[in-house]
């Protein structure tokens, strides 16, 4: 795999984290977290990629002993997506509740937990 995919993965993780640091809106912060996580998907798939190999499904067209990409990282990515869906939904629900209680979703205006 070319180094390009790894650079994209690192960039996504960093830009997502930077998004949370500079966020002025909690929904934006939660989505930034998803962006950072997308970096881990790219990284995992890049690790398992093989040039000129097919999908890891053996059958009439793909005989055993032909080159396939690594199925383990794909399983890990799927698990990761499930986790992400759960956590994102939960965090967005909390953001909605914060908006109801505080009337704002700007982290700069939330100060209930200072000190």
């Amino acid at each position: 795999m070319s180094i390009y995919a790894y650079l994209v993965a690192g960039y996504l993780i960093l830009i997502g984290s930077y998004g949370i640091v500079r966020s002025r809106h909690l929904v934006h912060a939660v989505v930034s977290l998803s962006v950072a996580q997308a970096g881990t998907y790219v990284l995992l798939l890049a690790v398992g990629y093989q040039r000129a190999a097919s999908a890891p499904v053996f059958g009439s067209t793909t005989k055993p002993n032909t080159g396939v990409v690594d199925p383990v990282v794909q399983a890990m990515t799927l698990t990761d997506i499930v986790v992400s869906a759960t956590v994102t939904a939960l965090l967005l629900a909390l953001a909605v509740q914060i908006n109801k209680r505080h009337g704002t979703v700007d982290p700069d205006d939330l100060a209930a937990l200072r000190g």
Partner: protein
Amino acid sequence: MLPTTADLMPVVVAVPVAMACLLAVLGRALPRRAVDALTLLTMLGVTVATVVLLRDTGTGRTYTWLGGWTPHGNVGVGIAFVADPLSAGLAVMIGVLATCALLFAWHYLDAVGGHFHALMLFFAAGMEGFVFSADLFDMVVFFELMGASAYALTGFHVEDETAVEGGLNFGLVNSLGAYLSLAGVALLYGRVGQLGLPQLGEALGHHRPDALVVASFVLVMTGFMVKGALVPLHFWLADAHAVAPAPVCVLFSGVMVELGLYGVARVYFTVYGETLPHDDIRRAFLVLGVVTAVVGAAMCLGQRHLKRLLAFSTIAHMGLFTVGFALLSSDGIGGTAVWVVGHAGVKSALFLLAGLLLERYGTVDELELHGKARDQRLGAALFFLAAIGLAGLPPFGTALGKSIAEDATLTSGYHWGPALFVVVSALTGGAVLRFGARAYLGLGDAPHPEELAEATPGDEEPEGSVSGRTPLTMLSAIVVLLLAGLAAGLVPDIGRAAAHAAERLIDGPGYAAQLLSGVRPPAPEPEPAAVWTSTGVVLSLLSTGLALLVAAAGLWLRRLRWLHVLTPVMHRLHRLHTGHIGDYVAWLFVGMAALAALVGLPLM
């Protein structure tokens, strides 16, 4: 094939998950008491199963390859669950703490629809899976499972404005940590093509670490360090503890945070133990541990919200536990293990007492409570007992663990070790004693009206609706936890058992040999029993005495003008805790960079 003890491990993970799903669906149809009873019975069953597992594991290891996917040679895609004395002991602790938390919640919390109970079961199952898992990716998944249920439990009081904010901060920071861990796992998989801890350890072996190995180590550890609340990755902890319901805090402070450190230790010894030099790791974690202990203790002193105060005391203790781990010796880690058990007992009891105060008076603010809880005789007795236990009075497990760890620092040549342990224990214990003296005894300067008017962080709604006598279920949960804290210091031979457990943890090559080739480990060498020493007792008494002084100084602070020179430092430290999610994430990267520098630079 007949079921063996090892088959209990998947069971203690699967049964709570199944019960949680059942309760999430049927919770609304069942009466509250049926939900309570089912949850409690499930956790009692888990506790009994883990006790059996601990007994049968003895000083060795039991393991099972899930679904019979055993590895061929060093290659395999199966996932193993392993119990050694340390992981089995932690599993028992999770069971006991969850059972006590649920017992306390029997008359606490207007939990509707079984959601609270289902979440508690998911949380416990996630933690049990995390301690048994011998697969790096699996560890991260269980880490996320316990994380997701913990975020939801933190924000359980959705009507409370601080609770939702604390839950969100906790969730964002911890999830980001978990994703960084996952990135580390991916890098490691790219190098080795394996995910099992023993296979990874074999593959990395004695090779000189290169940049990729160090990067994967730093990334994986960052996630665990966030959970373990090492400064500067600790900010979420105080927010989450201040707002989570008291029974949830029992699991947070008692075991979840400690599991972060367990993850660090397990992964280091099994995967990186041979490749990253011990001296390097020792230096890195000693620095992080000392900083965490000092910052935690200083912040703890400055709090007036009891749950926040206890949270910072947990951070300070995590710093001390990290120092104990960083010695990388069986004495250091064994002492820490005993200390963790003792700490879980007394700290959990304190959180539950905070829950009682919150329920009765609608606040856990020290100044607002001044003298109000005078009629709570039994509560006061339990509170002070737990507080001096936290300060390290013999024969609590905290004191025994502390004294073993102190000896270990001296053996390793760190002569400042005992001083750090004594001072930090005294400062945190003193802060808790000060709170108790003000709330239960009405001692100390009366608060200024303007101090009372100051908005305190985490002004909360009462969490339950019990008036009159404290229900027996609540009291018994507190008493059981306190007794557990005492037992950790009194059970004969517990020190030696802990040292043997630590030996098994440290023995990474033996772990791999047993899982991959079935080589049984040699019986542990009969070491000198780690027991109470006279120095240890004297130092424990000293830390208790100092804690009383700290408490007195806090009560009559206005008369001690010379202490006010510290005020600017404290203010600066407090101002760093902004409650701002962006700041927390920025600090997370500072912590990660610090670890990278501490581990990576000496290897250049």
